[in-house]
């Protein structure tokens, strides 16, 4: 694979990481498979697009996207999911219904046309890196992915909240028993996970565009990553994103016939023989 293709795989992996990290935070700690995560990504993209085009600022678009999607996440968690706590299957299916509603709502508001988030002037064009001419914006996505990873790593390993989250992933009941308001930790995590989806939407919306089925597509990738990487593990999501991003690019170039198989084949095998993924640990409850 040439440098060019590797960069393609890495930048796509970076975007996937931002989105999937949100997904695994929610899955890891709250044990909720949020099938509306893809819809949150797309909604974040649309909202970010509208804010960015109205205000002329990409950064404001990003903040707008994250805030809006965190708010939607709040509605989902506090308004709907609270009625089905503890029942995994019901939660999953409820989020699926929510995804349908969001998807249709987006169609009504933004229509079916494809939109592209406008990128700021300084990120336009390209630069020479490792001997190839590569779009600057994609490099920005790559850097952002790394920054988000570093940020989450710092959060999880060097803050109290992070310690609570990690403990909760292992054993939520124990954390609650030790007097911590686990509900609040859950809520913050849900908001953070949702905000990450929204941020992903804005970023992806600038080079992959926003359109009605983008939500299903990114959801499928996120599922694959979290399953391969393992529930609740940041390193797992990182590795999973790299694998899926690179495999996807490799697959498109070398085996266009097998598009989905290249990702889902390994995922299915992994699930069958190592259901916890590469870095997942079984919860003690």
């Amino acid at each position, binding site marked *: 694979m040439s440098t060019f293709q590797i960069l393609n795989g890495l930048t796509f992996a970076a975007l996937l990481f931002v989105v999937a990290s949100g997904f695994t935070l929610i899955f890891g700690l709250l044990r909720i498979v949020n099938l509306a995560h893809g819809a949150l990504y797309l909604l974040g993209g649309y909202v970010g697009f509208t804010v960015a085009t109205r205000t002329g600022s990409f950064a404001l678009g990003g903040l707008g996207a994250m805030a809006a999607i965190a708010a939607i996440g709040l509605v989902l968690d506090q308004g709907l999911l609270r009625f089905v706590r503890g029942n995994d299957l*019901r939660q999953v299916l409820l989020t699926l219904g929510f995804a349908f509603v969001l998807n249709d709502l987006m169609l009504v508001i933004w229509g079916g046309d494809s939109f592209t988030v406008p990128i700021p002037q300084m990120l336009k064009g390209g630069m020479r890196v490792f001997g190839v001419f590569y779009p600057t914006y994609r490099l920005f996505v790559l850097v952002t992915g790394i920054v988000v990873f570093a940020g989450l790593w710092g959060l999880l390993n060097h803050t109290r909240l992070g310690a609570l989250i990690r403990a909760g992933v292992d054993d939520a009941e124990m954390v609650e028993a030790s007097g911590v308001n686990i509900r609040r930790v859950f809520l913050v995590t849900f908001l953070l996970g949702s905000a990450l989806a929204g941020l992903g939407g804005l970023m992806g919306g600038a080079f992959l565009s926003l359109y009605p089925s983008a939500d299903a597509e990114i959801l499928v990738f996120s599922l694959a990553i979290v399953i391969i990487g393992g529930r609740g593990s940041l390193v797992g999501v990182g590795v999973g994103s790299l694998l899926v991003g690179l495999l996807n690019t490799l697959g498109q170039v070398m085996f266009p016939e097998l598009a989905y198989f290249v990702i889902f084949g390994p995922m299915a095998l992994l699930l069958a023989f190592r*259901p916890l993924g590469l870095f997942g640990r079984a919860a003690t409850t």
Partner: protein
Amino acid sequence: MTGTEPQPIRIVGMTGRSAGAVLVVLALAAALPLVLSKYQVGLATEILIFGVLAMSIDILAGFAGRTSLGHGAIFGVSGYVVVYASAQAGLSPASAFVLGMIAATAVAAVFALLAVRTSGVYFLLLTLALGMIVWGICLRWTQVTGGENGMRGDVRPAFLVEHRPFYWAVLVATALVSYAMWRFVRSPFGLTLLGIRDSESRMKSLGYNVPLHLFVGFTVSGFFAGIAGALYAMFNNFVSPSTVALAQSVEGVLMMIAGGVGTLFGGFVGAAAIITLENVVSAYTERWQTVLGVTFILIMICAPEGIIGTLRAIAARGEERYKGN
């Protein structure tokens, strides 16, 4: 439980009262084409076919505690094989039908091999992934499956081309298949599955080979889904990647849930509810997807036992109150 009550007479495994009820329902169902329009008979046929699909999913979900998001793919594979055998290979409808059933059972067996060691959400995700692989194959293997365009064919035997005879044939097939599924879940094997649903560890400690039971249960469930798929291919004379897509699996699960997980026959109720709702809603608005999503959400929050489940619960409470007097 007193031992002095007389044993009820059982016909084909049902009590006299239940058998009577079943006969009444069947008679009513058979009379429908005489009063309904062609289009409505088509809807009724679809309700029967999807009812069978929902029931097949319920065998695993309600009776073994594992919800699958891959049954749409199994259903659709049967359809592909039926249309291919009939349109490309020129086989008779009967042979095509049998091949479809075999193909679906084989695919289910493969899914089962990979899925038996997982449960809950992981089972859901694994079956979802496997379904996507099947979808990807149907979409990209254009030489055989027709790719995007799907495959068309005149699959029905000559005497079933008209909508009424076809409906009656489907009704007969559905009745037989439902009876078979009912016997299956009530058999000792079925009871073992129930035991696995309630407590896997206990069944293991009692010496049952849990993975083997799950494997057989999954494969049998796939067999029935395959029958539904073959009937659907005959109904449409057409199959396309959307028949094996995730949306199909989701629809099946939704119908099962709307009727009631674990009620088996709730599958028909759920199918009837969803299909009728879609027809009514689409006449007035394009926002069917929103209605579907909201319905899903409401069912999950307010009535997770589904229509039949909730009715049973109400009846049980009523009975308790009555007994208490």
